């Protein structure tokens, strides 16, 4: 109920303040050495954001924006993907040097450097209980690593093209991988058994999210956003599919269990959509990642990693509004 009220608030807020329907430029730009940033990750409470900036990782507080920490010396090449544990105890990074680096998020020291990947690491995720580390690479491999016991659990070679994204389900019992082979594989975390394969994209899969139990939302180079019902893993089915523009959809994120969805593409178009309303913005730069700031008490805020403008953070209310 509270969730529905929040969504309705989003709708009313825009209707009652017509000034917000104007295209706004009031966004925050985080200071980075490179203006090409491939990933971003908020801490679970949304107080800080981690940004992989070439070989290093910068952590900024969000309000007010200030550099809190810099993680250096772990990589000798571009970092492509990062993740912060739910309790903000560890940070994991991976990239072009094929190294997975596990950092102590508080002391900024390297806990462990893992070299089981033999290709560019494209995506990393930590399970909610901090037990598992999931990673995918450009050599079609997915690895599940036990962070507690410091041992590699499984090397998975089911995909036939680059792994573009890996993700754990909200309860951590499943994980999924998306690939250039157009498929999404869902696995059981306990034994790494393949539970289901989702086939519906006609081009590379770029992003996967678990907005709530029994659902997956995926996006890809076919410009499609597909919502899957996975309540029956023997027969997963497509609940809904729609297009966004004509370019590769490189970023999606969900807010409020998927009631609000942020979508961004390689052309720089951004859309925040709910059942009642739609906010759009055009950055004119390729978007590599979009993420809602968690636990935002006022209006929704998104952070966007781009090729060309670094990382920006903007209030959704400053985008162009349209009621549906």
């Amino acid at each position, binding site marked *: 109920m509270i969730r529905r009220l929040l969504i309705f608030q989003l709708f009313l807020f825009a209707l009652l303040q017509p000034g917000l329907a104007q295209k706004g430029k009031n966004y925050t730009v985080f200071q980075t050495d490179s*203006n*090409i940033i*491939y990933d971003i990750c908020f801490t679970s409470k949304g107080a800080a954001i981690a940004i992989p900036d070439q070989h290093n990782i910068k952590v900024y507080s969000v309000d007010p924006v200030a550099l809190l920490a810099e993680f250096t010396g772990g990589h000798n090449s*571009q970092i*492509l993907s990062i993740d912060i544990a739910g309790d903000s105890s560890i940070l994991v990074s991976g*990239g*072009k040097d094929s190294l997975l680096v596990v950092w102590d998020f508080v002391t900024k020291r390297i806990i462990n450097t893992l070299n089981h990947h033999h290709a*560019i690491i*494209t995506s990393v995720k930590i399970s909610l209980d901090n037990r598992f580390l999931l990673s995918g690479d*450009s050599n079609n491999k997915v690895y599940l690593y036990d962070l507690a016991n410091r041992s590699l659990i499984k090397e998975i070679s089911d995909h036939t093209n*680059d792994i573009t994204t890996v993700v754990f389900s909200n309860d951590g019992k499943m994980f999924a991988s998306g690939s*250039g082979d157009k498929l999404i594989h869902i696995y059981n975390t306990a034994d790494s058994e393949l539970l289901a394969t989702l086939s519906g994209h006609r081009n*590379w899969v770029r992003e996967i999210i678990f907005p709530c139990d029994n659902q997956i939302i995926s996006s890809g*180079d076919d410009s499609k956003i597909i919502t899957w019902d996975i309540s029956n893993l023997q027969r997963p089915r497509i609940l809904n599919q729609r297009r966004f523009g004509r*370019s*590769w959809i490189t970023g999606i994120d969900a807010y409020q269990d998927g009631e609000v969805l942020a979508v961004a593409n*390689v*052309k720089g178009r951004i859309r925040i959509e709910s059942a009642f309303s739609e906010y759009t913005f055009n950055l004119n*730069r*390729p978007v*590599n990642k979009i993420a809602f700031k968690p636990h935002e008490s006022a209006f929704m805020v998104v952070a966007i990693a781009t*090729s*060309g403008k670094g990382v920006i953070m903007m209030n959704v209310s400053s985008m162009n509004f349209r009621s549906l």
Partner: protein
Amino acid sequence: MNLSAEYFEGKFHGEDLTTDKDFVYPSFYNNLEGFTGLAIKALMKTNPYLSLGIGAEAIMANNWQLDDYLHYDGAEMKLLSVTPCLRLHNRYKTHNFHDRTLIFIELAPMLGVVQINIEEPVFDIFQDGNFLEPLLQDRAFTYGVKCHTGAGYALTQLLGISASYAIGYYKVSSVLNNDRNFVTSQFNVGIYLKLMGDKRYKYQ
């Protein structure tokens, strides 16, 4: 993979007269006014800086003129060739200047057939001691190499335009003239279709 179609105009370079066994003849190719042509090409990127492909081109030339010589007045030449090609280019990026711009140099060996039509017979041709009928047309095998340098600009993710300058060297042997090789320069303009995007744009 890129598919391209190009239109080009060019001219022949070389001496107006050619010497064979102490006889001086007017050159055939070098006195053609110029040529126009069409080329199609398919290129596949094998690494961020290198593409390999194959193409085909057709060249048409006419309007032969040389001072008081009338040997090849009204002559025309057509050349059809296939050209495997090797292109070195800048790395594709999704940002700043390089997200739309392609700068390249290309080396393209070529293998083809040249057809020459003339209006008046130039040589008396003997075979087995007899004159043959006046020969007004000949087809001859030709081979050579072309070197292009140019640039492209992507209008959309799928479509781009390109322009390039090329120098070519051809070896040819026809019974209708004494030229055994010729050099060309040409200016190409065209469009290209990007059939597959750079999927690994983040980490190529």
